[in-house]
């Protein structure tokens, strides 16, 4: 009954980055923006509105859920909502990573990019 994971692919790059960021643990909105910026070396800078637009979509797809846990009471962040990746989300992001890896491998095998070359 369950949908084939490949049917969710390819992921929108922004969705991929958000899911990837969440694999590192629960994040709130600003945390995600920071993480994505960090992952891409500042190349991708999410604006709040579109971030939540993606989050809304990812929740709907079942890749992301709102975390039930809150930060410790002493944290000033207690009223914020945190998001966590679901099992499905994890599988999807992994599948997407594999897919991208295969594509990259293909490019490397044709010497399109050098083995060492990585996006900056």
């Amino acid at each position, binding site marked *: 009954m369950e949908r084939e994971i490949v049917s969710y692919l390819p992921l929108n790059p922004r969705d991929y980055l958000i899911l990837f960021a969440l694999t590192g643990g629960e994040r709130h909105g600003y945390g995600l*923006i920071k993480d994505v910026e960090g992952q891409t070396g500042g190349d991708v800078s999410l604006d709040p509105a579109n971030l939540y637009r993606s989050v809304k979509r990812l929740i709907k797809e079942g890749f992301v859920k709102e975390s039930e846990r809150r930060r410790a009471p002493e944290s000033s962040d207690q009223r914020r909502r945190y998001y966590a990746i679901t099992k499905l989300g994890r599988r999807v992001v992994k599948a997407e990573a594999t897919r991208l890896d295969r594509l990259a491998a293909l490019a490397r095998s044709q010497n399109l990019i050098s083995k060492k070359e990585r996006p900056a």
Partner: protein
Amino acid sequence: MTGRGASRGITVWEALFRGTMWVLPRGFRSAFGQDVVESFRDLCRREHERGGVRAVVALWRRSTVQLVLCGARERLAGIQERLFRPAGKPPRRRQPGARDAIEGVVQGIRLAVRSYVRNPGFALTAVAIIGLGIGATTTIFSVVDTVLLKQLPYPQPRQLVYFDHASHPAPLYRDWRDRTEAFDAMAAAWDRDIDLTGDGEPERLDGAIVTRAFFDLFGAEPFLGRLFVNDDFTGEPRVTVLSHGLWQRRFGGDPSVIGRTVVLDRSPLVVVGILDPAFSPPPNVVRSGTDVWVPLDIMTPAIQHRGLFILNVAARLAPAVTVDAAQAELNVLGENLAEEYPDRYRRGDGTPRPMDIVPLRDAMVGEVGGTLFMLLGAVGLMLVIACANVANLFLARGTDREREMALRAALGAGRTRLMTQLLTESLVTALTGGALGVAIAYAGVRAFTLLNPGNIPFVDQIAVDPRVLSFAFMVSATTGIVFGLFPAWQAARADVNDALKDASAGAVGGRKRARTRSALVVAEIALALVLLVGAGLLFNSFVRRLQVDPGFDPERLMMVPLVLQSGTYDEARRAQFARNVMERVKGIPGVREASHGVTVPLMYYGRTRCCWRERGFRSDDLGEENEELAVLVHPVSTNYFNTLGANVRGRELQPEDDHMTPAPAVLAETLADQMFPDVDALGRSFTLDDMEFVTVGVVPGLRHWGLDQEVEVEMFVPYDTFGVGFRRFNLVVRTAADPATVAQALRQAIWAVEPDLPVDEVITMRLRIATSMTGPRFYSALLLSFAAVALMLAAGGIYGSMLYSVGQRHRELGIRIALGARGNDVVKMVVGQAAVLALVGIGLGMVGALAVARSLESFVFGITTTDIPTFAAVAALLAVVAVAASYIPARRAARADPMEALRSE
């Protein structure tokens, strides 16, 4: 210091950002709005640390642009989600912008459907109004199409012509057939009632005796067996073809009836064929419902008299011969015949008697054509009013949707796109209304054929067919464009900036729109007035028809039409029958007076041929002659006028009058006035076609053709002398009580004298009169109902318009009330406003109605088409309705709460 400054700098931008949050759809905003703002605040803090206020401003600019785009995408996605995607399918990602026109229309349809689901009241009202308009128009169109527009269902229909002026004698038919070149084929039919006896009850059937070319001319085919062949017209055995209906009804559809002998008018005839049920001959040539077909030998001695007008004649023009050319040839023949038979074919002024042909269709349709086009015009008007009404609805709705439109414009929807959407919405409305209209038309056509007002040819073939459906579709589409274009144009033109300002002010383009709405209401009132005047004139005419003095007293009067067939009855036997029946009928308890005649009043309403007409009046006393005057001669029994309750000046016909010379005659006033203009007709003797008469009485005319017809130039002569040669025999009885009580006794009396005589109907004169009014009643009722709908629509238009106007001026009215205006003043103001619209509409409508009414000349009776009471009554009615329709909105306005009005200011 820096902290406070930073937070202040951030707060401003945050507030600005927050103030733009409304671009997000409400659902998104409530789910994530707070988080979006907080993330923005976090980013602001970081940017402020990194690059100060400049960085914050850059962030704000970037984020706000993204926010607006995000809002647009979300809203579109929302629309998509609700419409494009069946449940369970993931939303398609789509690039906004690149969408072609077709997609725009598809989207428009979905948006329209969605907006209707959201606002079903509006949709239902609009669809119902349009459906009604299109339904009525389609119904009438399907009648017009079948009767007037479609080809006649005969071979080479355009070449078929009909010989005008009713029936013609057989010798003249032969002259036409043999002495002209213009016609390819010519056929004649003689309508006769034929008695079928043996095998069950005696039955009187509608029969037609037809010439050789008849079935070929009209392309008839046998259903079973064969039609007539040449030998059938002269040789033995005599043969007959039966209608499919009679075969089913009387012979149970038994195929072995072919070859069997049936007894028609006491003669044995062999059935050779059953006629195709689809065959429907022109009703002006052969009565519809004819059941028995018999060959006519045109050389039969019995019909070789040039005064025997029995044949209905039609012909097919030879190829490339026009009606005019054929007419020219007939005119030459007419000249020749006038030479050969000056007595018969030369008129008093020396010119030959005209012999005219008309295209068969024109002859078949006759006056009905005008009536149907009049009805089509009336429903057309109704449809235009319905359009105006719906346009008004759309305009009012346009105001409510101004913000939606402006927002869509702000989000990048082009003007064309918005117009497309609005037009699509109106088209969807119109086409849905059209579908409803087609359903109404199905019912309408059924009702129309059931209520058949008579004299409509092919009434059984009227149907909602593909032609009618495509007509309905085109009318619907046109309607949608007509009522949709204007509101669409207005909405698309609306200024985005104005619209995005506080929408509760609501008066954006309000003035212009109010003007448009007022213009539409005025148009509705004007058109409704035109329709009401038309209906009023027809109704007034109908009432006047009913009030016509028939020249006799129709109360408790009963008539029994009988036919004494020539095969069975000779003159002596008819006279004998008359005496015996009268004796018995007079003995029936409850019968006060009884008499009989060849015809009775209203016997032949709606027909153009019947009866005995004579020409050739001469009065030796006065030395006057009038060759042209065609006198209708009615052989009647004694006590005839007494039974009818007609006032005779002089005396009635009496038993002693029979076989006297000169024969006593009772003259209708019309005839007396024409023959003896300056002297009293009583006691004057005269001759008519060499028969000698003396006037013994004068009666006001009896209306033979219908109450709305002129009184004929007619006279009444003794039955025993002049009537026994005719098959027709009509019994008239005046009863003491309800005539229905003696109906059965009347039948019994007839059967006691003649057990085999079919007695088709025993009907009251009241019913006969009512039946003769079917046409006028039907058409005036139809027009009245159209007018009633128009009136309702106009009232709805005024009501809606005033309600809207009151809503717009809510604050103004509140302030007025706050400043001391009383409710009464407000009511007066609003009603006054409606009255102004109504007056302008009525004024314009009057002009239109005067123009249109002129075309109703042939439909009015007893009044002129500029009948002032009708016009005045209609105008007054419309004014009253307009004022009444504005009263509810006015009351509402008067209750406006001044506090609320002031608060919102």
